[in-house]
């Protein structure tokens, strides 16, 4: 039984209420038809519904189409350097655990140049929400193959088609120690996308959401088979996972009951090629967060900090001869 106290109730009455416009900043420069728009709409809706205070919310990104995301949120944002969105976000969370931290990263930003940070961010399991905008191509630099481009993808860097099998971000994430939340969404099912974004936000720990998104400019037909055949999208549902609405159930009839606590089954599902699994693959709220493990027991007062500095600096202090003699 977790009841709110009278004081909490009264204070909530005084809370500010936010509208969608309170989170909207500028007109997105993404191409018309880009899946990033759907992700932006879902995230802004989440902020409004959860009443996230803009001055307590941070979006951190790296480089790429998706990484323009913080520009379109009227919150704090950090449009960082390529592949380093996750360490920046972790630093923000470590220094300011009271902030809600989101990361928007693309398939190049996360799975290529930022792959090392990605692995370790999963392992550290800090309480941040990560959206991997996976359009399977470098779009901002006009079509180069990314690590998640399917084999045979023709691009400026692979004019005869890419030679390697695509990297699977889900199975990679599920293979890392301390993984605590992995989900997959598609941008063309916005209701489910919103439900997953919401579940990810509520999870305490690093929530990794891969969002399969269309790139209408450079790979306009790439996802058509899945887009036009709902049976190629497999909805994962469970009483402890995603609940499928009647409307979505009518469109997406290919459904699978999957317990998000079952990591072995999650790995199997993540590896499927024929269908795109959509839903929560894995969720374990018991995995500890790094910031909680490292939180100091004592309050860092100025006196404590000063004493610590003095102690360290004293190690390198060259004392005058007479002082040394006196001390002896």
């Amino acid at each position, binding site marked *: 039984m977790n009841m709110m106290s009278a004081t*909490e109730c009264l204070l909530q009455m005084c809370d500010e209420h936010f509208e*969608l416009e309170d989170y909207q900043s500028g007109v997105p420069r993404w191409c018309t038809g880009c899946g990033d728009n759907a992700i932006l709409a879902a995230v802004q809706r989440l902020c409004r519904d959860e009443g996230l205070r803009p001055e307590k919310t941070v979006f951190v990104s790296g480089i790429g189409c998706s990484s323009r995301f913080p520009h379109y949120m009227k919150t704090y944002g950090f449009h960082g350097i390529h592949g380093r969105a996750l360490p920046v976000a972790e630093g923000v969370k470590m220094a300011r655990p009271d902030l809600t931290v989101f990361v928007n990263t693309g398939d190049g930003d996360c799975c290529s140049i930022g792959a090392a940070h990605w692995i370790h961010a999963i392992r550290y399991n800090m309480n941040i929400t990560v959206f991997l905008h996976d359009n399977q191509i470098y779009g901002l630099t006009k079509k180069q193959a990314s690590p998640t481009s399917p084999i045979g993808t023709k691009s400026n860097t692979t004019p005869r088609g890419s030679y390697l099998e695509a990297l699977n971000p889900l199975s990679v994430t599920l293979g890392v120690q301390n993984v605590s939340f992995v989900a997959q969404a598609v941008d*063309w099912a916005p209701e489910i996308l919103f439900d997953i974004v919401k579940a990810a936000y509520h999870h305490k720990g690093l929530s990794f959401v891969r969002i399969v998104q269309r790139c209408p400019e450079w790979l306009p037909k790439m996802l058509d088979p899945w*887009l036009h055949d709902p049976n190629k999208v497999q909805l994962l549902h469970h009483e402890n996972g995603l609940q499928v609405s009647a409307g979505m159930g009518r469109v997406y009839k290919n459904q699978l009951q999957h317990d998000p606590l079952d990591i072995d089954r999650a790995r199997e599902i993540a590896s499927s090629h024929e269908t795109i699994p959509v839903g929560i693959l894995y969720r374990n709220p018991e995995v500890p967060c790094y910031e909680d493990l490292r939180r100091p027991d004592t*309050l860092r007062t100025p006196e404590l900090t000063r004493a610590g500095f003095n102690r360290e600096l004293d190690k390198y202090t060259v004392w005058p001869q007479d002082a040394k003699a006196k001390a002896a």
Partner: protein
Amino acid sequence: MDRDMEADTQSHVAFFLTGRRQPEHLDAVDGLDLRPALFAGYRELSQLRYDFPVVLVPGRADSQSVQSLSGLIDGALATAARGSDAERIRKHVLALEQEVRALAEGGAGGTLAALWNAAASRLAKDADPSLADSFKRARAAIKVDGEVAICDAALPARLLRHAWSAVQKQKAERFRKDLDRLVQKLSDILKADFARSEAGRSPAHLQESVGTGYGGSFDFDALSHLLATALPKDTFPESRRQRIRELLAVLHAQQFFPPATAPAALAGAPAPYSFEFESCAEALAAFRERSPRLIELARAIAIAQLEIDGQYNEARHDALFEQFGANGLDPQDLEPFPDYLVCLNAAKMHAEEHAQLMEILSSGLQIKVLLQIDDILEDAAAGAGNLSAGLRSRQVANMAIGLNEAYVLQSSSSNLFRFRERIVRGLTFGGPALFSVYSGANGAASGLPPYLVSAAAMESRAFPAFTYDPSAGANWAARFYLEGNSQVDLDWPIQGFAYEDEQHQRVSEDLAFTLVDFVASDRRYARHLARVPREKWNGSMIAVDESLSRERKGLPDKVPSVLMVDADNVLQRVIVDERLIREARRCREMWHSLQELGGVHNSHAEKLLAREKKAWEERMQKEAEAQPAAVPAATPAAAATAVAASAAAEPEAEHSPDEAWIDTPRCSTCNECTQLNGKMFAYNGNMQAYIADINAGTYAQLVEAAENCQVAIIHPGKPRNPNEPGIDALLKRAEAFI
């Protein structure tokens, strides 16, 4: 039946009915030093391994705060007694345990370490060199230490104070941490404010902040000028500054928890309040007196939190906090503050105190009350041998559970170790708690050790153990716990008893331990008992539990009796008068009530079960009779119902093929349609498209939007203007989306 036997039976029956003993047939039990037969094996408790003594481990606010000596020794032996020395270590350490127990029960107080050393030196006199090694190895395996407590009159208060102190210490640490954080953050706000002020930017202050070492290396005038021009000009309202200073003053002056240990904080800090009391009246008076300070502090904490988050808005919050706590604080708000502890003894409680106790238990305040009862068999003023006087104390816990809001624990002292987790739960419960404990230390009334008396009270259902935890769930099944008692589904617990008869043959039988067995050990009730000389034993004597289950009509032909043993462990049979049987019957009825609350033989459940069973049998009977005709007919009907139910579960909005519409929930916000015609297509509150004005565009735009839509959710319907140019081609293109 011969004449003598008939006379004996008649005298037994007469005693049963009147309590009047005929000396030629029956002996008085006074001076015989009898005790219930089941106690025969418990003459010397220090020779036995049981839950006591216990070690009160400091600094723990969980089940590990109280540990049994036997448990600690067992744990140590599991670690230390291994290999070829195992048997030797085991033997030595068990002897040491016995010595520690004897010392503790002999009145030697102190910590486990002290008693361990004392016992070790006593045993070392035997000069076995391996003793020291055994003790050293076992001691190294015991990682805890603490005061050793035996099961005596002081135990309930001692144990509860110990657990309460640990819980309060933990609470204080948590509170202190929060308070220190608030103080630091508020001070930081004031410091930042000062740094941005004219005084803070002055060259003199800037120089001070750099220190003496490199003071000459800076141009502080230039620095001050730079800061004056570069820093934002928005000012910090004086009202906020004042508010933060007031908050800091309240937080510093609080007396609910001890101040921080830093010497600077200690200087001039007011003395913290005490929360331990000897009476309910004192505790309530203290609570009322401190209430304004409590509300002030709670208010300051709430405002400080808002200030730190930058959320305090005078227009919104000033009025709210002006009335803060006008109706007192609710239990959730009170939770972080210390709990009061009141230790009462039922013998010293008068009616007014009793009323105050009930007020506390119904108040929702965090006051924990220990009601220690030393005697539940005290004589009533109304009449000798009447047990009802002790009943009042016994029934306080039963009354308290009726209040529904208080945590209630009833237990004998002997069971407190087993209930240690429940004690901690009561102490951490966010409301009032009553711990009603029977110590068994009723002086010379029985001559038995308190542990045995209190265990017997619980075993005989005279003082059953239970807990009622309102935080455990919404119903009785979750809240009420009765399983701490032995053989909870029986009226009286049954124990096996073996003895040697006159022919030196082993005889075994099952004995029920009833209220009469418990009362029989109390000398004050000797007049209700009479020993039957062995030569006069006959078939007219039956066990008390059997007697209670019999329905008596007319003159009794059987007399209830209990088996007892004398100081030489010789078996005696003692008959009982009706007064005690009446009490035993009442005790059993009370036990039945508790059983019902605990879901054992619940009459409502049994009645419902019987009704359902009967209904089920009737239904089965009818189905069996109607089966040949019903089976084929039922299938289509059932199928129709299933289809109807399924259709009802998923209503689908119908759209005419002529109507233009968008499946809005599936819109992926891709901007295709809104960029085509921002008046015809618009986004709703969730940024998903809908047709805002069908007349704001052409049919051609509708068709184009449908074709461009990434998720194919735009349905153009039929054109409103049949004369639109190229309509035939448009209709053909639209077919795919209708």
